[in-house]
Every structure is written in C-alpha cells, then in structure tokens.
C-alpha cells in the first residue's frame, strides 16, 4: 500500500505541483490544506504518513502547525516547504519538530529524495 500524504500550502499552484510530483512517484495525496488550522484539523482526521508544510500560511503559520501536530502526534512526519531566504524559519521549524525541508523552486528529484528520507 502506498504512503499517504497531506499537502499544505496556501497557493493552489504549489499544491497542484507538489501533488503531481508525489502522485507521479506513486504516493497517495489524501488531503490538501490551505491554512495552518486546516492542516492541523486534517492531520488529526486523516492521519497521513507524511505532511508537506508551507512555512508562510494564513490563519496559523506552518511552524505553529508543526508544533500543534507534533503535540497531538509526536511521531508525525512533516516536511517543510520553504522559499529561499527563510533559513531562520526553517531552522525554527526543524527545532519545532519538522523532519526535513525542501527549498522552492522545487526540483521533483529533490522533493522525492526528501520524502523518501522522511518516510525512511
């Protein structure tokens, strides 16, 4: 059975792109969230194997969403999606419990490498 993934990003463009990369590699995108609050809510409902999380989102940012999800599930596997120049936020997200990160603009191979690393 393929791994289930929740994709969180406030831009439809990004969600679509990540979704295509993941689906193309055989993963199952089980949900999409466009705010941190939605991400937390969907995580507890869907219990996906992995979450891709944008850092900057309206209504609870990605880092807080990481904290909240990890509070509910300390084993949650979260992959941060970051833009260039957000290094401090990435470090904060890692310290908050995110497992790994990828940097936009995405190269499909790098995204998939990171996903594989996190799913271990």
């Amino acid at each position, binding site marked *: 059975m393929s791994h289930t993934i929740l994709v969180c990003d406030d831009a439809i463009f990004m969600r679509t792109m990540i979704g295509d990369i993941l689906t193309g590699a055989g993963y199952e995108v089980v949900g999409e969230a466009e705010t941190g609050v939605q991400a937390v809510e969907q995580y507890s409902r869907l219990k996906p194997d992995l979450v891709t999380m944008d850092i900057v989102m309206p209504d609870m940012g990605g880092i807080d969403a990481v904290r909240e999800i990890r509070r509910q599930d300390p084993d949650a596997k979260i992959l941060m999606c970051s833009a260039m120049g957000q290094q401090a936020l990435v*470090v904060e997200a890692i310290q*908050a419990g995110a497992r790994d990160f990828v940097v936009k603009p995405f190269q499909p191979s790098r995204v998939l490498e990171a996903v594989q690393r996190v799913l271990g």
Partner: protein
Amino acid sequence: MDRARYTDLFLTEGREHLVTCAQLLVELERAPRDLEPVHGLFRAIHTLKGMAATMGYSQVTDLSHEMETVLDAVRRGERRASRPLIDVLLETVDALTAGIETAARGQDAELDFQDLLARLTKRPRTRKRASNDAAAVKNTPLAGMWVQVVIDPAAPMRGGRAAVLLREAGSLGTVSEITPSASELERESFTGQLGFHLVSDAAPAAIAARLRTVGDVREVTCDPRSPGHEASGAGERHAAKPSTPTVRVDRRRLDALMNQVGELVVTKNRLASLAAGSGGELSAAVDRMARLVSEMQAEVMLARLTPAAEVLDRFPRMVRDLSRVVDKEVSLIVEGRHIEVDRAILEQIGEPLLHLLRNAIDHGIESVEARKKAGKPPAGQLSLIAARERNSVTFEVRDDGAGIDRAAILEKARREGSVADSVTSLTDEQLLEVLGRPGFSTAKRVTSVSGRGVGVDVVLTRIRPLGGSVEIRSEVGRGTSVTLRLPLTVVLLRALLARVGQERYVIPVTHVAETVFLDSRSATTLDGRQALKLRDETIPTVRLRDLAGFPDEPTPTRQPCVVFEVGTRRTALVVDALLGQEEIVVEPFQPPSGTPAVFSGATILSDGVPSLILDAAAVV
C-alpha cells in the same frame, strides 16, 4: 559523564549569562532602537539554551528558546522592544535565574513556565517541548567523539541542513561545542562545514552512516580520539578557536589559599621576631622567606581581585524597577566597573550600596513634577562610582535630588539629646553621626520627616568592621553623596602597632594620614581642649589611653601621634609609643561586653599575643 562537575559549570556560566541579560535588557529599554544589546541578549540566551539542553533541563531549555525566539523577532524588526515586552523578558530572566538553580538540583521537571511561555508567545502553550532532548541526554554514556561534517556547498539553505543534521545527531547522543556557532550557521556565508562534539553509545561508524542519510551531506568523519580538544584533522576549525589564558578556579579554593597565606604571614612575622638579633644564616634565611611570603601574598591577592562589575552590574536593573515602583524617572550612571577589588570586600559591599541607592531613589530624588518646579531635568541623575585610590577603594552613590533636611534631623537629634542644644546646624560629619545611630534611622516617623536615613546604620555596621569608613556630603536642593571607603583587602591589613601601658593596639593604615610628635612646639588648644598644630592646621587630639580606659599618668613632654583622616575630618590619636608596622590577619570579632566601641576587631600579633584593632572611623 561527571554530571556534578558539569552542573557547577552550568550554574556558574548560566548565572553570568543571565546577569548579562538583565543588564542588556535595561540598556535596551533605555535605547529601544539600538540593536547592539539585542545581539548580546540573543547570544547570551542562546548559549544558555544550549547548555540547558545539554544538561537535559527541558523546562529551562523551552523557556530560553522562547525568549530567544522573541529576541530574534526583535532583532529582525518584527517585534518592537516595548516596555511591556521588556517587562516580560525581565521576568523571564528572573524565572530562568531561579529556574537554573532548581534544575541543577535535579528538579527541572517541577518547573512550570506556562504562564511566561504564553506571554512570550502571546499564544497559549500546553505542551512541554524538548522532552526528546532530555531523554536523549539521560541515556548518554561516557564516550565522546569529534564529528566533522561537510554539507554540499552548492545545496540551498545549508544552515537549515545543519539544523536537520544536528537534530539527527541529538537523537543519537549529546551534542555540544558546535563549531561554527549556531548563529553563524544561519548566515548565508556558512560554507557547509561544521564540527561538534558528540557523546553517544553508538559506534562511530554507525553514527557516520546515520548522519550521511541527512540530505545534502557529503562527508562525515567521527574521530573518537579527539573529543573536540586535540587538533586533529577533523578538529581543525575547533582548534583554531583562540585559547584563553585563564582557568576557572573554585572561589573557595582561593579563599582557603588566602587564609593560609594570611596565617603564613603571621608565622613569618613571629619567626622574624624570634630570629631578630640572632644574626648570621638564620636571619638571612628568615629575610629570604619573608620576601617570598610577601610576593606570594601579593600574587594570591591579585588572583582574588574581582572586577567591581560583578556587584555593580546588578544595580541598573534594581534602580529601574525601584524607580518605577515609586514612579520617578531615574537615570543611573555606573562608573568604575573594571576596578578590581578584593572579592571579600565585594561580597560585603552589595548590601550597603543597595541601601544607599534605595535611599537616593526613595528619598533623595524628587518626583518629576517637583523636579520640573525646581528647574531640574525630569530624570534624576544617580551615579554609582567605584574608584581606586592609593590604599583604598571607594564606592560613591551620588544623586542630584533634594538633599537631606538637616533642620528636621537636628530637631529630632536635639529631642533625643544626642546633640547639644547649643548646636544650631549640623555639619556633614555630625549628620552622619546622627543618622548612623542605630534606632535613629530605623524609626519610621523619622524617615518620613528627614527624607532620608533608612539604613545608614546598616551601612555603617557593615563597613566599619572591614576597616572602612563612610562619608556623607549633602546640600539642600542639590543632592547627596555618600562615599564608602574600604581597604584594598580585608583578610590582611597593614597596620601600625601602638602601645599604651603594657598593652598593644593595632591601627590599620587605611585611614592613617601621617604620624607626628606632640610636644611643646606642636601642642595647642582647640575649644579649650588639647590639640595638635600641624603645619597650618589645628587638629583635635584623642588619647588612646582614655579610649582604652587606662588610668591617667603624668604626660611626657613628647608623645607620638597618629593622624587619622576620614573624609575631611582629621583627628590625632595620642599613644605612649609606636612600635612599627605589621601585617595582620583580621579575625572575626564578637566584642566582649564592655569593650569600647572604638575597637572593631581582633588579631593575633606575631608573638602570639592577641590584640584589639582600633576603628579609625569611630575615633574621628
């Protein structure tokens, strides 16, 4: 790992960092746009966080982390260093200051910082983070290794990669001594090469393999032979750190050493007096030993010297808090932080200074309105100045407030009968005498009348046993200055030996201006009492014979005098004979009842006979 040893180090350094934090926060409040204090704060709290995490103190780690996050936001201009924020940060520093002590006692888990965490983040926080770190630490065995990692220099966000790597390493054991520092890791210029010390029970090969699974990692080397200190190839960056030429020594060791040197000096004096007149090789050997002991004493004293900053740096915070409580504007200037003082004195000086500062803020400096009315700037100027003089150190607390209401004090003193009715105005010296009387200053009624006085007796009782003195200068409408003068070191005192009858007394040189003879040419009178004419000055005399309670004897025509100088006051002490100088070790002294108040301590002289130490300030 020897946890107890690390606990001590953690506490010592942790306290230092927190003192720094409090100090910088006060600076920041004064100039909220100045980012320099923020950088310092960030570094201090970041270091504390790292240390706490290494120790497995997760509550302390969490709170430090949150404070760091706030500071980072301030640093990047995302949050303003507003007063309320600084209040919360100061509270956080307080909580951490208490917290590290609790954690060091092994009670970290009992700490509850929920409230502060919530106020720092302004978001409710319900969960304890960093518990993983704690768990990782608890299982760490003894072996350490130096891990060197190369991250692909072409990879984006190498600093983020380093964070992932360090988190991974942290899950394997205890990470410390990360090089370059965490803040450098986050810079764009970070090349991707980092090293750290790792204590883990996993095999080096397994660790390397695990760390290579982290993205963008090109190379991992684990060198068990060089736990971060030897300059191996892997540790080069680390070894390149400048090594400081200092070593930390437990203070108690220095104190013990100083006490032993003190005893040694006394024994040396005793030996010298036994060998006196024997001549030849014995005298030569005793002389040589005397020189060596003196040099050793000087070295130990230097080792004990501590910058006055250690005590002075507490006060900006206190002054800030207190001035807000009484709703006054006070700007504190601290000078002489770098002055080096015997630690024994520093330990004693804190409380007296606290009293004086409190007095100045509470009673000396006026309200903003009153100051405006008096044509003064709204903020009261408060100065705390440490200075080194030839044979002493001074600490001065000066304010530009209302000054002491002498009339009210005089009236009260007259009522009490402590001042003759004929006195119509109080000099600065008399003021000190009246205020310093126990009971006078502590009476509430008087405080509100005098506008000052609380704690002056506390100051005196603290300073005098150290061989120090207190001087007050006060001018109505212009302010008050109190100066504490102390010897350079308290354990060993250079002192004159004076004789009355068959009894010898010790006179510390701290307040001795000179020694002269009182004879027919220099004797004069002042207000009908015997006095000493010295150059153009007429100085009142006091006879040690009277002070010590000896019966009168016919006065010889030529008597030695010791001229004391305390503040601007001078008094000549007439003795039967002066026997020379000696270095004495001050013993803690509980005066037997009936001992005249002019004696502040006791010592054992070089011939083994105990002797009383005269308090110059009480004589003058």
